[in-house]
């Protein structure tokens, strides 16, 4: 199945200390892609299959004990920890299995390439073709009389973390844009993300202005924001959403950053959304893992969950996106969204707001486009935030920003069970391959880097895999409402911990049979019946055709045509 997998080493008689069922003895195989543990003595057969990319930390725990056991602890990015024990003094083969593991788990630290570059599976679909920026903007009706495409960043000279294709108001020249580049942090200037098909209210994303302590101003930046407002005739106001808590935004002035003053930006209203930074989020997830893995303390479950603040952060992000979507939809007002650099909280907010506003992004392919656009092309630093193949697990740049976004999407799918074309398994698959390093999709930090590394040429896209077996990822209850805005409820009372992701390793939390299965059965039954009806209809038609055509409106005609979902 996996091409270019090297079966590197196998060790027998290794014990896996399972936190749920106790020690399990079996054989451990390590390849350059994954770790595979199997125990055939048990009923049912016990297996463990883990891509090495999911490892965040792997180490020998303590010295050999008096009994000569050596134990290895593996900390995973996907909310579990594994522990293996084996006898030290036996043949060298076993030892090598773990040595190989250490080597292949962190290829980047060992100056090797990630497995995605070795993986050569061929799929019927080419996922790299899913996102074509111009086609996507064209779907939104762009360019139009107010918005144009600018080639100013064609070779990533002005901003290496932005995409090549940028949409800006027609009234702003490239020359003016160049000046704005120097005024926005990391050159991430305000550019269009999405435009409302009717009101022309736009969602614009950026990074913080480099205001500094002295209140620096940039008249081109002010003009750009004014132009963004003017591009929407429906409203004479512009909302600037700063994702940060106001205290942090103010503190950024010390380092040259800051936020737009309402003096400099006439008609603009600044709103802080109080979302915390990557370090707070990382810490929150760490606490969450402590609470859910391996064991859940029943009597204090709820207060423990509260103390992680995880759902509170989710609430704030969703609430922020909701306010943005509301301003655009109900207020018909254009909005500018930024945080500090505009590559963490900003894509969280814009992509969630876009999912609320545009039903296209709730389809499987639309969601892929959304990720490609808002996250990948606009330079969310996946390499840094996930730390692909990097041994340095304490790296302060790591943070579960993308996971948090997917969690928010999951919360929305719970609240609107018929509004999304994809199912929960689709979201989990994306997260699993965020870490697996099997596909090239989430590698590198920006579009520019991916091109430089020739990622699209040398690796397979996750969407090739997904789009070649869509039926796995389809929500059987999906109803397509074309122009339907979703406003989720953000109260903690309606937010749930995503048990099937965060606690999926706990066998007790697994349902006997997912309800999903029931839906599929129903759909299958309908399809089967429909087929039979059609057969009979055909048969009847043949019969009546020979006699006469008097019964044009036969009862079978009156049945509403049934769409097929699967």
């Amino acid at each position, binding site marked *: 199945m996996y091409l270019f997998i090297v079966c590197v080493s196998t060790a027998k008689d290794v014990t896996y200390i399972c936190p749920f069922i106790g020690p399990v003895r079996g054989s451990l195989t390590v390849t350059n892609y994954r770790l595979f543990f199997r125990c055939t003595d048990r009923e049912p057969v016990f297996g463990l299959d883990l891509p090495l990319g999911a490892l965040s930390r792997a180490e020998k725990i303590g010295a050999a004990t008096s009994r000569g056991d050596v134990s290895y602890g593996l900390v995973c990015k996907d909310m579990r920890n594994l522990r293996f024990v084996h006898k030290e003094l036996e043949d060298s083969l076993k030892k090598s299995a773990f040595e190989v593991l250490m080597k292949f788990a962190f290829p980047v630290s060992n100056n090797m390439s990630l497995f995605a570059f070795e993986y050569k599976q061929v799929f019927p679909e080419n996922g790299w073709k899913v996102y074509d920026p111009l086609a996507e903007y064209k779907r939104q009706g762009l360019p139009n009389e107010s918005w144009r495409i600018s080639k100013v960043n064609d070779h990533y000279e002005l901003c290496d973390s932005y995409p090549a294709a940028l949409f800006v108001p027609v009234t702003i020249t490239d020359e003016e844009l160049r000046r704005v580049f120097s005024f926005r942090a990391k050159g991430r200037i305000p550019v269009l993300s999405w435009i409302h098909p009717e009101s022309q209210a736009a969602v614009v994303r950026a990074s913080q202005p480099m205001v500094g302590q002295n209140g620096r101003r940039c008249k081109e930046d002010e003009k750009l924001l004014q132009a963004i407002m003017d591009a929407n005739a429906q409203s004479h106001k512009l909302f600037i959403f700063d994702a940060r808590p106001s205290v942090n935004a103010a503190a950024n002035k010390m*380092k040259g950053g800051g936020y737009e003053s309402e003096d400099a930006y006439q008609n603009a209203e600044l709103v802080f959304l109080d979302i915390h930074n990557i370090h707070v989020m990382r810490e929150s997830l760490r606490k969450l893992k402590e609470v859910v893995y391996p064991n859940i303390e029943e009597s204090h479950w709820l207060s423990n969950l509260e103390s992680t603040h995880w759902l509170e952060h989710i609430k*704030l992000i969703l609430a922020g996106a909701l306010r943005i979507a509301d301003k655009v939809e109900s207020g018909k007002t254009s909005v500018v969204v930024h945080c500090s650099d505009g590559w963490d909280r900003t894509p969280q907010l814009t992509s969630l707001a876009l999912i609320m506003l545009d039903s296209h992004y709730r389809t499987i392919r639309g969601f892929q486009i959304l990720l490609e656009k808002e996250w990948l092309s606009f330079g969310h630093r996946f390499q840094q935030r996930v730390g692909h193949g990097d041994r340095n697990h304490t790296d302060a740049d790591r943070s579960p920003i993308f996971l948090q976004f997917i969690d928010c999407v999951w919360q929305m799918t719970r609240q609107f069970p018929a509004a999304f074309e994809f199912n929960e398994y689709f979201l989990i698959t994306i997260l699993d391959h965020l870490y697996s390093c099997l596909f090239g999709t989430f590698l590198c930090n920006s579009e520019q880097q991916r091109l430089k590394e020739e990622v699209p040429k040398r690796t397979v896209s996750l969407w090739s895999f997904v789009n070649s077996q869509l039926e796995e990822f389809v929500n059987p209850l999906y*109803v397509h409402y074309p122009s339907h805005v979703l406003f989720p409820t953000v109260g903690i009372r309606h937010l749930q911990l995503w048990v099937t992701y965060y606690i999926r390793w706990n*066998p007790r939390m697994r349902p006997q049979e997912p309800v999903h299965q029931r839906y599929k059965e129903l759909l299958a039954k309908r399809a089967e019946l429909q087929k039979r009806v059609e057969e009979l209809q055909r048969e009847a038609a043949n019969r009546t055709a020979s006699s006469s055509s008097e019964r044009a409106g036969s009862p079978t005609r009156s049945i509403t045509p049934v769409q097929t979902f699967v």
Partner: protein
Amino acid sequence: MLSLGSGGAKSTKPSFVSYVTPEEIKAEKDPPKKEKHPDLLPGEVEFCSANPILKYSQDDLSQHGVFGTLFCTNFRVTFISDETPQEKTAKTFKNKLYGEKNDIPLMCVDHIYGVYDEKRKLITGGLVKNKYPSKMIIHCKDLRVFQFCLTFTKEEDAKKIFQGIAHHCLEEKSLKCVFAFSYMGTPSPGTDLSFCREMLRKQETIMFDSPEDWTQEMKRTKANCRLVIENKNFELSQRLPKYFVIPLAIGDLFSYQGKGLPIWCWSHYSGCALFKASFPPVTQEDGDFQKHLETMINAVAHNYLYSVKTEDLSESLPNIQDIQQSYNKFKQFFLIENSTDFWLSDVKWFSSLESSGWLDIIRQCLQKAVEVVECLEKDNTNVLITEEEGTDLCCVISSLAQIMLDPYYRTLMGFQSLVQKEWVAGCHAFLDRCNHLHQKDKECHSPVFLLFLECVWQLVQQHSPAFQFSETYLTVLSDSVHVPIFSTFLFNSAHHREGVMKAESPLAQSGPLSCPTVWDWSVQFDSKAQNFFYNPLYSEKVKHEKAVRKPHKPKHQRQLSLPSTAFKTPLKKGFFKDETDSLKKMLQVKRLSRWMGSPDSPAATTREFYESWQHRPVDYHGLLLPCLDGPAVRVWMQRYLRWIPEVYILGGGSVAMTTKLMELLSQVQDLKRVLEQRDTSQAAKIDHRPYIQHRLLSFGSSGRLSSSFPFAYTRNRSFKPIIPTGLMQRLMVTDSLASQEDEASSVASFV
């Protein structure tokens, strides 16, 4: 200070600050002379009324409202708006007895608060006398909250209505004053035809008020026990049902007024059975009584293989006062008066829930029921559960165990029969526990029946396809407890019921009494609305398949999920267990054990039991066990959040899914029908499954229904997102992380 344009209303106290904008006051400058009156139910009498009263609308963030007349009748408190009624939208789910928007059955009132000079006070008897509050807040037992402003009406009217409502809702009263006794005196409404249909429907719910019902139930479960008819006239005990079933081995019925008598609940196909009994605490000196109890336990052991486990529920579960206290705390989180309260409490939501302990009590009850199930299913041991009265937690645990074991009780009719068997015929003291009469004695109030419904809801949400009824059904049932019309929830025991009914019957001139039971759902809902009681996901048993496989089985036969041996032995100690089992059988040793004495903790063994069950293939018609881990026990969102506009999901929620499923099912059904029409050669009957009627429901723009559907149906609700107020969270991030830069390069020292 406000002065009202007309109507002669006295000016209010100077200290009163109006919440109402002047425009709103102007709106009622012309008080309608032609008074509106509520449509009274047969037997309903109006006590008093007052106009104009301002009713604050709940789903509005500001303190706006509508003017109208507030009435108090012998059935309800009702508000009628002065505004001309808006065009009636076809509401699919409407209670025929009372409207959810403006009617509060007297029995449904939980607490009344008065706002005096901006201070909120709980209204008790003493406060009613002279002063009346400017604002009256009513908390209902179904968790609705109403707010009325009394300052616009005449002082005497305001006083009268306030005192009237306070009196009828809060003062202790006699059972005869309950509306059911006025209501049932009138001939039952509706045509004969519908009455006949009702009778037919009723017949399906087994009432367990005749010896035949019990005989039938014993036959169904293949029980080998004895039906007792000696208590027909309550000579044996007034706390016992008229008819009940006991182990064969009991000879002496008449000692100790039936105390300690093991009442049969249900028999497992293996032969072992579940019994419950009232065991009063025994003192050391009372040797005779102790001996009596021993005899009783022995009799249970005789039922099957001389083994019995007894469990004193009052030892291992919270008592009824604990349950009451916990629920009182819990419900406060849902009685929300305004948006600010809502968002403030949202921050501490999880820890508040935990501090009430309510979810934990639910977990404990389910856990205990699983222990009972384990004994019956795995060990094939007779089980005797006891408590002092034998009619509270015994009912909870025995009903839960039966639902887990017997798929018949997961059908709608089966479930109703179960409630009849264990709770109504089983003499649960509904009247005292629900405090229908507002007795001062607080000791005996406790939401035990609600606790049972909560536990059932947990099972329903975890194993939806196994249940024929929906969560809406459970919610409606929990509301119906407080509708003072149904005989089901009005009495403390069978003896009590019979006594009252006999005494009351001369009052009703027209023949026998016809106080409806709650199962007569047509009293509250038309058949279209009743469709919401059925779960569209229910995985119905395929009938012909069964007929092929087990043609000899009678109709109500439970499916024997697996041979019990396949499930009997846990891996660890399997060998010894088998050996002792056979030894036991050979020697017929009496085994009297208590849970407490067993080596493993009950939680650990049930864990193992759960896990081995989990590994078996899914069988919705076999044994069903709940997952009890922290995240699996949830809040019954529909019941508790349905009246809170801040949590409505417009166009979403489970209703979106239900609608889609119903659509799907109706398509399947249509296709089937077409097939059958085509199939002229065979006059096969159409499968009339009840839930298929769902196709009749047209949700129209289902995309715009709110998650609270079918409750809190709001017509003209604007499609606006609910944005948290006070979003500036005091999210306490105390460490230094919050102030750090996103870019780690500037904080190299960070670890």
